[in-house]
C-alpha cells in the first residue's frame, strides 16, 4: 500500500480521533497530543509534496472502497498538499506561540476541550482542502463554523460572547446560502462528486442559464461571507481580537483560508474559469475585493487597539485574495493562493506577537500604552515589525511578491484591470504604511514610566522567531512554492 495515497485520509481522520482523546486526557496530555497531531499533519503534507515533486501523479482516494460517483472521495495533488502544508504549519506555529496565553485565558478544567476543538478545526480545514465531494465540503464548512465558535468562546469574557454571537450569525447566513447553492447545483446536474460535476458542466449552454448563474452567485457570496469579504466583514474585528491569541491567529489564518480554498476549488474544478467568466460574477468579486482593501485599511488606520488594527488589516488582505479570484485567470488565482500562504504566515505572526507585546505592557492593548514594548520583548517586537513590513509590501518579504504577482496577472488581462489593480495597490500600500508604521514606531518609542511587564517564555519567543524566519523565506526563497502552486493548478 502506497503511503502517499493515505495522506489525505490520515489528515482528516487522525485529528478527529485525537480530538476525542484530547477531551478526556489531563491538561498537559491533551496539549501534547494536539501539538503532536498538528505536527504529524504538517509532516504528512510535507511528505506528499515531496512525492508530488518527485513525480507522483494526483489521485483520488475512495472512502469505503466505493469509487465516485457512488462513494465519497478525497483528492490530492500538488495544489491541495501545498495548501494543506502551509495551513497546518501556520496552525502549529500559532498554537505554539499562543500556548502560554491559552494557559492563562482558558479555565484550567476546560483546556483539554480547547485542544479537542483545535483538532476538530484541523480536521475540518484539511477536509475542506482535500474533499472531492461538494456536500462533504458543506458538512465540513459547518463543522469548522462550530469549531470556530468554540475557539472564540474559549475565553470567558463579555467581548468574546458578543463577538461569537455576531460571528455565528453571519457565518450561518453564509453556510445557508452555500447549502442552497449546493442543493440547486445537485438539482441541475444530479451530481455531488466534483469530477462528475465538472464533466456535466464542461460545456454549459450559452448564454448561461439563470439557474446556473444563481448557483454560482450563492456559492460565491456564501463562502465570501464566511471568509470575511467586504461588505460582509463587520463580524471580523470582534471575533478575531478579544479571544485568546491562539484562537485569533487560527481563525484569521487557518479556518478562513479553508473556505477560500474551497471557493477556488469550486471556481476552478467544478465550473471552470470560462463558465465563471461568462456568469458575470467576476467583476463584482473584483470590485468587492478592491473596496475591501481600501475600506479595511481605512478602518485600520482609525483603531487605537492594536488587536483591532491587525483584525481590520485582515479585511484588507482578504480583499487582495478576492481581487485575485475576481480577475479569474490562471495567474491571478495562483497569485491569490500565494497571498493566502503569505497572509496566513504573516497574520498569525502579527496576532501572536501583538498578544506578546500587550502582555509585556501590563495587559493593555491601546497604542499609547505599548510604548517601549518592542524593547522589553525583543522577539515579539521583531516578529511584529517583520509581519507589518511583509503585509505592507517591503521587498524581500512575502507580501511584496504577492503584490507583484497580482499586478503581473492584472497587466496581462487588459488596461482596465491593470489600472484598477495598480491604483488599489498604491493606495492600500500608502494606507498600510500609515497604520503599520504608526504601530511599529509606537512599540519602539522610549517608555515614560515603568510598566508591569509579564515575563515571556523562551518557547513563545522561539515560535515568533520561527514565524519571522518563514516570512523572510517566503520573500527570498519562495520560487519552489510558486512552482508547486503553478504545477498544482495545471493538474487541478
Amino acid at each position, binding site marked *: 500500500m502506497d503511503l502517499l495515497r493515505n495522506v489525505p485520509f490520515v489528515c482528516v481522520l487522525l485529528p478527529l480521533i485525537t480530538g476525542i482523546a484530547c477531551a478526556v486526557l489531563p491538561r498537559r496530555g491533551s496539549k501534547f497530543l494536539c501539538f503532536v497531531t498538528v505536527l504529524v499533519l504538517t509532516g504528512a503534507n510535507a511528505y506528499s509534496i515531496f512525492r508530488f515533486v518527485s513525480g507522483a501523479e494526483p489521485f483520488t482516494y475512495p472512502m469505503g472502497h466505493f469509487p465516485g460517483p457512488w462513494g465519497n472521495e478525497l483528492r490530492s495533488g500538488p495544489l491541495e498538499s501545498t495548501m494543506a502544508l502551509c495551513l497546518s504549519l501556520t496552525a502549529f506555529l500559532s498554537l505554539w506561540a499562543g500556548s502560554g496565553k491559552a494557559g492563562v485565558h482558558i479555565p484550567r478544567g476546560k483546556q483539554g476541550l480547547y485542544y479537542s476543538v483545535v483538532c476538530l478545526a484541523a480536521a475540518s480545514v484539511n477536509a475542506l482542502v482535500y474533499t472531492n465531494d461538494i*456536500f462533504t465540503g*458543506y*458538512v465540513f464548512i*459547518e*463543522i469548522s*463554523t*462550530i469549531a470556530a*465558535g*468554540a475557539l472564540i*468562546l474559549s475565553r470567558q*469574557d*463579555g*467581548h468574546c*460572547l*458578543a*463577538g*461569537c*454571537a*455576531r460571528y*455565528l*450569525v453571519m457565518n*450561518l*447566513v453564509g453556510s*445557508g*446560502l452555500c*447549502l*442552497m447553492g449546493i*442543493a*440547486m447545483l*445537485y*438539482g441541475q446536474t444530479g451530481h*455531488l462528486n466534483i469530477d462528475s460535476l465538472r464533466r456535466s458542466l464542461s460545456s454549459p449552454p450559452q448564454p448561461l442559464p439563470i439557474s446556473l448563474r444563481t448557483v454560482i452567485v450563492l456559492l460565491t457570496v456564501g463562502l465570501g461571507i464566511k471568509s470575511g469579504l467586504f461588505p460582509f466583514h463587520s463580524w471580523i474585528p*470582534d471575533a478575531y481580537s478579544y479571544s485568546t491569541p491562539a484562537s485569533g491567529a487560527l481563525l484569521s489564518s487557518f479556518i478562513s483560508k479553508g473556505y477560500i480554498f474551497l471557493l477556488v476549488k469550486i471556481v476552478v474544478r467544478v465550473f471552470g474559469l470560462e463558465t465563471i467568466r461568462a456568469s458575470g460574477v467576476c467583476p463584482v468579486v473584483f470590485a468587492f475585493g478592491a473596496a475591501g482593501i481600501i475600506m479595511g485599511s481605512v478602518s485600520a488606520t482609525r483603531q487605537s487597539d492594536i488587536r483591532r488594527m491587525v483584525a481590520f488589516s485582515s479585511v484588507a488582505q482578504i480583499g487582495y485574495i478576492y481581487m485575485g479570484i475576481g480577475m479569474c485567470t490562471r495567474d491571478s488565482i495562483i497569485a491569490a493562493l500565494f497571498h493566502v500562504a503569505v497572509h496566513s504566515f504573516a497574520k498569525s505572526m502579527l496576532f501572536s506577537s501583538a498578544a506578546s507585546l500587550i502582555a509585556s505592557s501590563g495587559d493593555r492593548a491601546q497604542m499609547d500604552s505599548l510604548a517601549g514594548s518592542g524593547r522589553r520583548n525583543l522577539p515579539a517586537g521583531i516578529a511584529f515589525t517583520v509581519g507589518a513590513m511583509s503585509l505592507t509590501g517591503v521587498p524581500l518579504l512575502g507580501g511584496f511578491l504577492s503584490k507583484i504577482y497580482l499586478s503581473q496577472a492584472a497587466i496581462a488581462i487588459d488596461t482596465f484591470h491593470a489600472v484598477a489593480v495598480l491604483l488599489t495597490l498604491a493606495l492600500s500600500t500608502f494606507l498600510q504604511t500609515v497604520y503599520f508604521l504608526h504601530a511599529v514606531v509606537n512599540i519602539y518609542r522610549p517608555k515614560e514610566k515603568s510598566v508591569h511587564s509579564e515575563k515571556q517564555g523562551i518557547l513563545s519567543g522561539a515560535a515568533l522567531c520561527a514565524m519571522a524566519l518563514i516570512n523572510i523565506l517566503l520573500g527570498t526563497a519562495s520560487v519552489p512554492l510558486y512552482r508547486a502552486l503553478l504545477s498544482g493548478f495545471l493538474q487541478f
Partner: protein
Amino acid sequence: MASFFRGHLYEAAAMILFAVGLTTLLLHRNMIKKIIGMNIMDTSVYLFLASMGYIRGRSAPILEDGVVSAEHYVNPIPAGLVLTGIVVSVSVTALLLALTVRLYKRYHTLDIDQIVLLARKGDG
C-alpha cells in the same frame, strides 16, 4: 406563470421559506428569533431537496417483492442529504442556544444590538 407554480409548488414554497428564514436570521435582533430563522432557512432547503428527490408513483429504495429494476424506486441520495443536513443544523442550533443562555445570564437581554453595546461598555 400560474402553471409553472402549479408544477413547482414545493420548490416555490421552499424558496419563499428560505427568504423568510434568511431575513429573520439576518435582520431580527432577538437571538431566539434568529435561531428560529436559521432553522426555517435550513428546513426550506430540506423541502427543496426532498421535493426534487420524490418521483410520483415510485417507492422508497428498499427491495420489495424481488423487483430489482431501478425504474420502481426513487433516488435515495436526496433523502440522505436531508438527513445529514438535519444532523448539522441540530448541532449548530445546540451551539447557538447554549451561547444564547450564556449571553442572557450575563446581560439579561436577548437583543443582540444591546448585547454588543453592553459588551463594549462593560469589559472595555
